[in-house]
């Protein structure tokens, strides 16, 4: 099969592109998403939330290439034989591309490594996600935007997960960017329309040499089940994932999030209840009084 734009051999089937045109397609798709959904202004100071995986590395690289003012923030959850390797890679990558990298750890910020928290029978993904979101918001107050590497697969999964759990408020908050709310740094997702597979191919062709890692706690998550089912559907009916997002965006409720927010008396972060979720978990775990 040849590239649909030239006579070179295609390296991917759908869309069928050669290496050169595929790289251009990925960069153009991210650029168009930024433009269409008004994700970034030239003057914005952007913090890219990085894990050291292919998605966040690709995002960091593309935003830097597009000459945005970017810095990177990584969260070290404290997961043995997983995070150490990706953090070492991140340090090398950021040094090579002259990007400032900030690392915050659960151990210092929360009081315990995730491995230790999970040992006492606590649900890894819920706790990890809550702490990560809280730290990400806490340390990005001086930035205009937080850019995350969420891709088309992640987002289609999130739409389905929220539907299956009937979480209307979360369902309504999906999309290429979050709304602006006091106390929150706005989050943007420039890779929203790129498939996980496309980002993987991009990172291979660019020789990023991203270490292959899978979080040991992710395997049994609800997301993993939704992902597998969605992948099955996509092979039987190509385009399913993109259609989910296009239809979601078309029908998305324009209703603003009316949830009243205050600020957590313990940490100062925004919260919907008496204290924020992160402090509530820390209290339950005995990490704060």
């Amino acid at each position, binding site marked *: 099969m040849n590239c649909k734009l030239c006579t070179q051999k295609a390296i991917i089937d759908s869309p069928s592109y050669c290496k050169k045109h595929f790289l251009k397609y990925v960069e153009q798709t991210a650029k168009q998403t930024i433009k269409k959904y008004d994700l970034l202004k030239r003057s914005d100071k952007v913090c890219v939330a990085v894990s050291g995986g292919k998605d966040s590395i690709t995002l960091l690289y593309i935003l830097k290439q597009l000459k945005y003012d970017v810095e990177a923030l990584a969260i070290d959850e404290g997961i043995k034989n997983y995070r150490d390797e990706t953090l070492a890679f991140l340090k090398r990558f950021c040094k090579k591309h002259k990007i400032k990298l900030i690392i915050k750890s659960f151990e210092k910020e929360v009081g315990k490594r995730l491995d230790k928290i999970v040992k006492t029978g606590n649900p890894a993904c819920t706790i990890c996600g809550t702490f990560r979101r809280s730290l990400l918001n806490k340390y990005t107050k001086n930035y205009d935007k937080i850019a995350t590497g969420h891709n088309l697969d992640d987002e289609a999964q999130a739409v389905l997960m929220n539907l299956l759990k009937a979480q209307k408020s979360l369902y309504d908050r999906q999309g290429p960017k979050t709304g602006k709310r006091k106390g929150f740094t706005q989050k943007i997702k420039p890779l929203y329309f790129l498939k996980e597979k496309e980002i993987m191919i991009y990172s291979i062709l660019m020789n990023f040499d991203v270490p292959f890692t*899978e979080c040991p706690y992710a395997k049994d998550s609800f997301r993993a089940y939704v992902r597998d089912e969605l992948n099955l559907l*996509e092979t039987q009916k190509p385009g399913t994932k993109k259609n989910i997002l296009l239809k979601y965006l078309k029908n998305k409720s324009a209703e603003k999030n009316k949830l009243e927010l205050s600020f957590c008396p313990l940490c100062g972060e925004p919260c919907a209840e008496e204290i924020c979720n992160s402090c509530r978990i820390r209290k339950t775990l005995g990490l704060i009084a």
Partner: protein
Amino acid sequence: MKVFIEKQNKKVKFVFEGTGTALIKKLKYNSEEVLVIKNGELVSLDEKLTNKDTIKIISIISGG
């Protein structure tokens, strides 16, 4: 054909001639979840693979 499955760090050897899609099916993978590297180069799934080829199967799924 020599096949290295990266995720399982496993090497297998068997007789096979056909496309990347057929190989993925034989190995019981989903084409959304893996990539085929033929003799060190990424190839599209309609690429013909022969017994002389060295194949690497890369998993796309990761959790960050």
